[in-house]
């Protein structure tokens, strides 16, 4: 247990340092970006048909809310706010706390990512085992090639194809949104959950399809290497049943995948920009994309920070899970 705590403490420190670096990096990076949100707002309103003085008065109020003062001071303020989980206020949506907006969007992305990863993990692992066991047959070979192919194909391609077929050509799934606010209100009941699932299905499927190839490949090579381990032969020679041996194999082969799991969170979260954009699903990715377009500095930093933090947390969880499952690490304490 002490070992576990020590490990956890190590992870947290490293995670915090990482977050600090990301915060610093994005803070300064974002301030390098060209564009003035006030001007952007004004021209956008004009382009949308508002008269210039209407647009001017609508945007004038924004002025004065753009952060002022020397950059280092802003930086310190930002950091001190961060400790209180205060990410500042949006430049683009007046009066909206970035933290509220980001935490509001976060669960939706996490929902997509988690369900996508979970499904792809299950499917990928099962097919990976098949691909490894049938390695030398046509089935195994084509499974691996298909896995590599899907692993290689970028998520946006998959999302485009899914969107084209299932929301545009056949309108089996909704063309956007998290749920239909006209028909259901948030709550813990069947209709709402069903509607959320209905809306999340395609984007989550895109995540799943985009990442399942990776699991398949990882599992295949993991199984292949475990198959070469002596303990499986030993188990066979001790007359353990096929089922028992399979369980031995599966558990040992899945274990190293937890490290892959950690890395894949980063990739998958990164893909959320495309997938949410294509499926018009308002999560963190959309938020980040929209805030970049609007030059909403604080929102941008907030969304980016949250994506990074989610990845770091996922990394830590994956590693702790690994620690928990693998006695070689667990018992080291």
């Amino acid at each position, binding site marked *: 247990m002490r070992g576990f705590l020590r490990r956890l403490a190590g992870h947290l420190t490293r995670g915090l340092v990482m977050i600090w670096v990301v915060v610093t990096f994005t803070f300064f990076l974002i301030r390098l970006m060209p564009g003035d949100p006030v001007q952007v707002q004004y021209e956008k309103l004009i382009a949308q048909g508002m008269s210039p003085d209407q647009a001017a008065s609508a945007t*004038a109020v924004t002025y*004065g809310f753009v952060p002022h003062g020397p950059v280092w001071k802003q930086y310190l303020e930002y950091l001190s706010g961060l400790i209180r989980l205060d990410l500042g206020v949006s430049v683009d949506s007046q009066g909206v706390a970035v933290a509220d907006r980001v935490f509001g969007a976060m669960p939706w992305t996490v929902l997509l990512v988690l369900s996508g990863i979970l499904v792809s993990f299950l499917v990928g692992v099962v097919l990976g085992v098949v691909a490894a066991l049938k390695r030398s047959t046509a089935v195994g070979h084509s499974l691996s090639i298909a896995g590599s192919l899907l692993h290689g194909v970028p998520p946006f391609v998959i999302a485009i194809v899914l969107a084209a077929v299932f929301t545009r050509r056949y309108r089996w799934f909704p063309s956007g949104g998290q749920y239909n606010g006209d028909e259901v209100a948030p709550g813990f009941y069947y209709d709402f959950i069903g509607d959320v699932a209905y809306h999340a299905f395609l984007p989550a499927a895109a995540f799943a399809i985009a990442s399942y190839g990776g699991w398949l490949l990882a599992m295949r090579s993991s199984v292949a290497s475990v198959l070469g381990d002596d303990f499986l032969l030993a188990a066979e020679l001790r007359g353990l049943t096929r089922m028992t041996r399979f369980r031995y194999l599966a558990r040992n082969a899945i274990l190293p995948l937890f490290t892959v799991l950690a890395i894949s969170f980063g990739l998958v979260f990164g893909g959320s920009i495309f997938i949410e954009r294509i499926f018009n699903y308002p999560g963190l990715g959309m938020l980040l994309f929209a805030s970049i377009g609007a030059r909403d500095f604080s929102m941008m930093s907030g969304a980016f920070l949250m994506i990074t933090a989610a990845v770091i947390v996922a990394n830590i969880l994956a590693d702790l899970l690994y620690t928990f499952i693998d006695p070689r690490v667990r018992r080291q304490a």
Partner: protein
Amino acid sequence: SESKPQAKAGGTYTTIDGNHAIDPQAPINPYAGKGNAFSGYNAMPLAFRKNHLTDHNQHYPAVAESWQVSADGGEVTIKLQPKAKWSDGTDLTAEDIKTSAAVAFALGGSIFAITPGTTGALGEVTIVDSKTIKFTQATGARNNTFLFGVLAMWVLPKSVYGPQLPADFWDLVKLGGSADPAKAVEAKAARDEITALGKKLIAFGPAKDVSVGPFVLDSVNASEAILVKNPHFYGVDKIGPDKVRLRNYTGNEQIWNYLTAGELDSAPFTATPTNVVNEILKVSGSKQIKGLSQVSAALAFNQKIAPFDKLEVRQALAYLIDRSEVQKVGAPDSGKPAEHTSGLIEDAAKQWIGDAEVGKLNAYSVDKAKAEALLTQAGLSKKDGKWMLATGQPFTFKLQVPNGFSDWVAAGKNIASQLTNAGIAVEATTSADYAVYQKEIAEGKYAAGFWLIALGPSTYNAYARLYGAANGWTAFGGKLTHNAPGASGNWIGSAETATVAGLGTLNPGELTYQLSQLPVDQSKDTIIKLARYTNEQVPMIQMWNYVNVQFINTTRYDNYPPDNCECLRLTHGVWMQLGYIQPKK
């Protein structure tokens, strides 16, 4: 577990407020750029401006039932809707309007500026009786936009916003607006206090919507806002739908998608390619309403960069580009090729200065020979089918367009193709997004780009796009100054004056500034000068005039506004207030 009551007879009307991104965390405050208050639904001004070709003072009554303007335009007396009530059931009174004016002051802008000496500012608000209120322009200041400045003011409930304001607010306004040099320090302090108050107010929003409009906000999620009918609305019997579902706007493609799925009852103006228009119109009940749009897309040049400083070159380019082809590629459904470059849209120009004057303008019909002559005259020469500058360099440039503006991108590519075929290698290139475009075009980084012009109906607004800050002229405190090209946002860089045949030497900046003060009926001559100047000097080539095309679906509702309705530019909530949009029997 809870479930919403189903919508009754009127049903749910689904549309998009193109001006408003939905933000679940934003306050219910019409001033907030992303507030959850939607014009014409739960956010109401005193009146809605009509889309009139030339008169910017024409309005549909809203919370103001009627209004009277004094002869000099400096005093506006407003009669409020006698039946107007807030959605919480309380009466709307002149007190509410005075509070609304106070909030408008706190947030500044337009006639609510408190900078001493600002032209056209509001001086005083007087309650006449509980349903009548008078707005007086500050003495000494004059501006012909006072009426619409007053009428455009958002109406807010005193019960909600009153407590946010200090008791001595109006004294602060008076003090802040004082031009007395002896009180300068106090005035500044007062203005600072008001600004601070503005910061607070813009982020403020009631927990629950208190609306005077036809609808009340019910719920918002990241992709839509749900509004329900306000039973206390003064014109409630005209309102068809029981509920409105406003979906978030994330891009044109999304709207096309909704429309082809038949998921919208109406959509805001959306640039749409022909093949998609055809798809949309295949959907049963799908129709288009077309009307006036007072915007033009133009190709703009940076005259600091050679050879755009040469008038002949700009004119030659105007002769070379086939504008109808550009429009066909860029805005096939929502545009009409511009006939003349005049700085105004075609119909407005005819109204302001008459057909005869418009007829005198050069149409720059495609004419290769003339273009070649002009280019040669400007010192360029043609070698192997390619135009060379006097310096011996080939004449090439990049045509910049902001990413995401699908019509401009397509049009830009087409212009590039056309010019390249004519021997001028042009590449259309996009900026990462509109923000970058804005910044870089203002910094003079682009040789050529797209620009929106001819914003009407105020001719001042239209010409300020050409001869305003972007071209070096800025008005401050009633004085016009001119900045050199490349400085203070002057990226167009025209000469300060130029001689126009038959009109002598003109300063377009000055002429434009005059338009803001001249009474409308005395502005014709100035407009003629500016139109002729623009036509001959071609600071920009007007490509196409927009047409306001809106898709509607008549499956669930009918009685939509007709083509060319003056209400077309207003939100569909306003259409409903006008009695349009009724559920199908």
